[in-house]
């Protein structure tokens, strides 16, 4: 639905301001444990949103998105482990660049396939990365992972140097970086390039006839998606101060954002964020009261696919529509 132009301008600012205040106050109200849970949620929002680019715009599902996320995480961790004096934003960008580079490398392969074959090829590539990561012990330190690397302070030249080892400080960094990523992804959909991407999903042949270089365009989408997944991975690496093959490349790392996407609502921009929130809350509740997290996830997936395929965002839109109709009648 397009926002009405006539709405008073202050109303448009209420919601973002409210979100801003909540985000600012969050760590001081809820404490370290919930602050860290929020960071985890934020990381996965971006990771799931980067996957959403492929699903929503190219219409393909990646079963190996952990390749980019893990690649970003390992790149950041290894750079910090081996090179001294790197800046905070530099290493985050290194993570993103690693994700983007991996996207570029695999794009010629991924361009050849679609639908189920795409899912399976990405699965194979993801597993290959997982195995290689366990195998290349002299680089990755095997299953113990890369850990204990120094986390650079956030230095604002001439102003301050902020220690990133405390949960609260890191929270603000993560929120800023990850919100920026989400905003960038959102703006991307509003650009002409975004229209081409949607065109590829709906009718690739037509985009081809219109004279756009289809493989090139798709490759760019893989690179962008890989970049944002890499950034999410980089923030994850800094947040955990430890990157392991299980955390970075395991098949569940690829499946988690898929589940989030579905639960939130596929094909919408808010979907991955909402899905990440819902799944985080469910996992939090499930771990506290049972040991059967997978059961809750499984039931949730079945219910979403069977009864509300548009996810929580779709559900919200449906409810809002019902209410709106009542008002007007």
């Amino acid at each position: 639905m397009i926002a009405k132009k006539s709405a008073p301008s202050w109303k448009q600012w209420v919601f973002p301001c409210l979100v801003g205040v909540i985000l600012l106050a969050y760590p001081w109200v809820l404490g370290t444990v919930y602050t860290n849970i929020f960071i985890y949620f934020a990381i996965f929002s971006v990771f799931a949103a980067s996957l959403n680019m492929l699903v929503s715009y190219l219409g393909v599902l990646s079963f190996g998105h952990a390749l980019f996320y893990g690649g970003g995480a390992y790149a950041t961790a290894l750079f910090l482990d081996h090179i001294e004096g790197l800046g905070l934003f530099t290493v985050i960008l290194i993570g993103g660049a690693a994700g983007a580079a991996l996207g570029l490398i695999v794009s010629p392969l991924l361009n050849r396939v679609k639908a189920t074959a795409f899912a399976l090829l990405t699965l194979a590539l993801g597993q290959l990365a997982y195995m290689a990561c366990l195998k290349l012990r002299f680089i990755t330190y095997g299953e113990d992972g890369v850990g204990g690397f120094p986390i650079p302070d956030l230095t604002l030249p001439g102003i301050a140097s902020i220690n990133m080892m405390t949960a609260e400080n890191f929270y603000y960094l993560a929120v800023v970086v990850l919100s920026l990523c989400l905003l960038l992804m959102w703006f991307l959909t509003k650009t002409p390039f975004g229209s081409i991407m949607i065109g590829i999903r709906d009718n690739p042949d037509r985009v081809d006839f219109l004279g756009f270089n289809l493989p090139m365009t798709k490759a760019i989408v893989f690179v962008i998606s890989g970049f944002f997944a890499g950034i999410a991975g980089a923030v994850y690496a800094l947040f955990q101060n430890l990157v392991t093959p299980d955390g970075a490349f395991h098949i569940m790392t690829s499946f988690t954002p898929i589940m989030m996407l579905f639960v939130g609502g596929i094909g919408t921009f808010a979907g991955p964020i909402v899905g990440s929130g819902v799944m985080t809350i469910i996992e939090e509740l499930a771990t506290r009261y049972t040991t059967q997290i997978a059961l809750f996830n499984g039931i949730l997936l079945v219910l979403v696919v069977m009864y509300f395929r548009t996810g929580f965002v779709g559900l919200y839109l449906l409810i809002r529509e019902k209410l709106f109709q009542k008002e007007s009648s």
Partner: protein
Amino acid sequence: MAEKKLFFNLCLTLSLMAALVLLPHGGFAQEVNSSFNPSEMSDMSDFDPNNFQQPEGDTIKLGYMQIMSGAAASNGELFWPIVTWAAHDINKRGGILVDGKKKKIEIVTGDTQGKPEAAKKETERLCLEEKVDVLWGTSGSHLAKVIADVAKKYKVPFMNCLALSDELMDEKNFNRYTFRTLSNTTQWNMAMAYYFSKRPETRFSILCQDYMYGHSMAGAFKKHLKKLKPEVEFVSEDYHQLWLKDFAPYLTKIMATNPEVLYTADWLPDGDNLAKQVRNMGLELPIANIYITLRETLKALGVDGTENLINGYCFMSGDTPQTEAQAKLMKAWHEQWKTWKAPYDSDTYAWPEVVLGSTLNDTYWLFDVIKRAGSTDPEKIIEVWEGDVFQSIQGIRTMRADDHQAVYDMYISDYTYPTKEVYPGALYSEGFAGPGEIITVPQKYCTPPVPEGLKGRAE
């Protein structure tokens, strides 16, 4: 064959006895700070792991960090009767006097899910929200590392009684709040190497899991055995994928090299599958292992499958309790086990042995340390535990002050069948072999030096 084996066992025993005699007597009169007293043990006839009675009110909180969910949830299940048993026992004694007040033990579970990020999140929750006084764990060295880091950050003592990677307690990863009661990779392999240096076999095949742990275990074994027995030959060395399905191609390759012993550090389910497929291929050779010990597995392997399994650990009784305390514990546990419901009614839990026994032993040690500290203040606990010498249920345990690594005698046994009754009417095992004669490897033969960078740290 049996005669040959008997002969070698005899030689081994004699040489060990000779070693004992030759050592200066002063080295043995070790003074202990405290000991496990079997006569203090509560009547455990009301203990049920499925229905552990959490105490109310002001308690000492123990954070049980384990894999409780997912495909590897068996780890979390396995040690639950252990922590609850020890806690129940202490609670029935009235608890522990800390900071001027008798407090009982409450157990709070933290689910690592087998994932580092979940381990971090849960440890934080336990430290900050539940405010646990000590942390207990955990299977998987990479997870233990995460817990140790969080424990250090929030100053909560962490007893690592299940992860054995050397690196966890080296210069880089050492922290004051983490104590490792389990033997490390080097200790375990030194003991195994010492044992095999007394046996006649010289041709060894190595088959371990292809990741850091498997490689470091095999590397340590090779190094220490070569040192003690230069004529040894490692005829094959292979590393297989985790969760391997088909071992046969490896076994054919190994058989072609004609080894006398197969060495493996595999944990489950790989260890089980390996042992089973080795015997199915008609291979009778001894299998030196660390984790092929769960009784349900041994039962399925049968007599032929379990004879000649050679296991080493820091706690082992077989059918012959080695100490009075162990005898009392085994009887109390086994009698009570008969009343337990699923999943704890399975044969795996029949005796507090090997991994189960060692963690139970360590848990009692932890509680004894808290008792002597008279406080849950981490600094006081550290003060008591550093350099502590404890007469445990089996063996004297010393917590090295410099690197927080417990050192002690190790036990190794070649499995035999039939086994005897542990006490009248309670046969150790039926239809599968168990530890035969327990060989004690004295502490001095299985104690690596303190890491260079940590020497003199505690002074």
